[in-house]
C-alpha cells in the first residue's frame, strides 16, 4: 500500500496534547489542530468546540493536497507553510514530519512572527513523537503483539452496524 497505516496510542496522544497545549500558551493562539494528511483529525486544543473540527480537518487536508500539487507543478517538493489572513482570525498551516498538518488559528493577540517562531520549535518536538510512534507501530506489528481491535470481528459485528 501507499502509506503505512496511521495508528495512535494513549501515551503518544498525551505527549502530543502536552506539546500542543504548550504551543497554544506560548503563541497566544485561539485553537490548534493536528490533522492527518488524509483529512482525519488527530487532536485539537483550545476553543475546539467553537469549530466544526471534522470539516476543518478535511478542508485543511484538501488545501494542503492542492498546494502540494501546485508545488510539484513548479518543481518544488511541497509548500511546507501556508498562511491565510482574515479580518479577525488568521490561519497558519504547516506540514510536520512529512505526514501530519499543524493548524494554528490566532487573532490580533498574537502575530504571524510569534506563531511562526513557536510552530518551528513545536514541529521538531512533534516530529520526534511521530517518528517514535511509527517505530512503535512497526515493532508491534513485527512481534505480532498488535492489539488490533478488528482482528477478531465477526460478520455479525459488521452486519449489526447497519441494522
Amino acid at each position: 500500500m501507499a502509506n503505512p497505516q496511521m495508528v495512535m496510542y494513549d501515551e503518544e496522544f498525551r505527549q502530543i496534547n502536552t506539546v500542543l497545549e504548550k504551543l497554544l500558551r506560548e503563541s497566544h493562539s485561539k485553537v490548534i489542530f493536528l490533522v492527518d494528511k488524509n483529512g482525519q483529525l488527530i487532536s485539537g486544543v483550545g476553543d475546539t468546540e467553537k469549530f466544526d473540527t471534522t470539516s476543518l480537518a478535511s478542508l485543511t487536508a484538501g488545501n494542503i493536497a492542492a498546494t502540494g500539487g501546485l508545488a510539484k507543478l513548479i518543481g518544488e517538493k511541497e509548500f511546507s507553510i501556508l498562511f491565510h489572513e482574515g479580518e479577525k482570525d488568521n490561519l497558519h498551516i504547516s506540514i510536520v514530519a512529512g505526514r501530519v498538518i499543524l493548524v494554528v488559528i490566532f487573532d490580533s493577540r498574537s502575530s504571524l512572527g510569534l506563531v511562526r517562531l513557536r510552530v518551528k520549535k513545536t514541529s521538531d518536538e512533534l516530529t520526534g513523537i511521530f517518528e517514535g510512534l511509527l517505530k512503535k507501530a512497526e515493532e508491534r506489528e513485527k512481534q505480532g503483539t498488535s492489539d488490533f481491535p478488528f482482528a477478531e470481528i465477526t460478520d455479525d459485528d459488521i452486519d449489526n452496524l447497519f441494522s
Partner: protein
Amino acid sequence: MSFINYASREINCKIVYYGPGLCGKTTNLQHVYQKTAPEAKGKMISLATETERTLFFDFLPLALGEIRGFKTRFHLYTVPGQVFYDASRKLILKGVDGVVFVADSQEERFDANIESIENLRFNLQEQGYDLDQLPFVIQYNKRDLPNVMTVDELRRELNPTGVPEFEACAATGEGVFETLKAIAKLILIDLKKGK
C-alpha cells in the same frame, strides 16, 4: 489508509465515489446526508462551481456505530467528474480505503464510463494502489431513465472481475444505501484481514 486512534477509540476510513461527469456522485452523498440521523452525520461540504458542478470534492462524515468499543467513522468523498479536473481527482484518491464507481447507465454515456474507470485504475496505480486489491463496488445509476443500457451490457465492460454491483436511482435514493453498506462492509472485512 484508515486511521486507528487507540486514545479516542476511533477508527476512520475514507470512501471515494468516482465516475464520469454528471453520473450522480454528489447526488449519492446528498441522499445519504438527507436520510441519516443528525447524530450520525457531520456537515456536508461541497466545493462546487456556481453551476453546482463539483470543483474539488464533496465531503460527508458519517458515524456508523461501534464495533468492539471502537467508534467507526466513514469519510465519504466525491471527485470532480469532468475530464479536465484530473489533477484534483488524483489528490482525492490519496489515502483511500474503498472506492464506489458510479456508472451512468445511459447509452450516450457509455464511453464516458469506460474512460472514467480506466482513469480510476490509472490514478490509483500512480498512488501505489491496485484497483483489484482495493475494496471496490460498482453502482449502475439512473436506471429509471428510458435510454439505459441493460445491466448485462454494462457489466461486460465495467465489471469483468465481478465486484459487488448495484442498480440505483440516486435522485430517488434507490440503491444508494445498499451501495454504501456494501463498500463499508468490504472495507471492514479488509481491515480485519489486514492484521
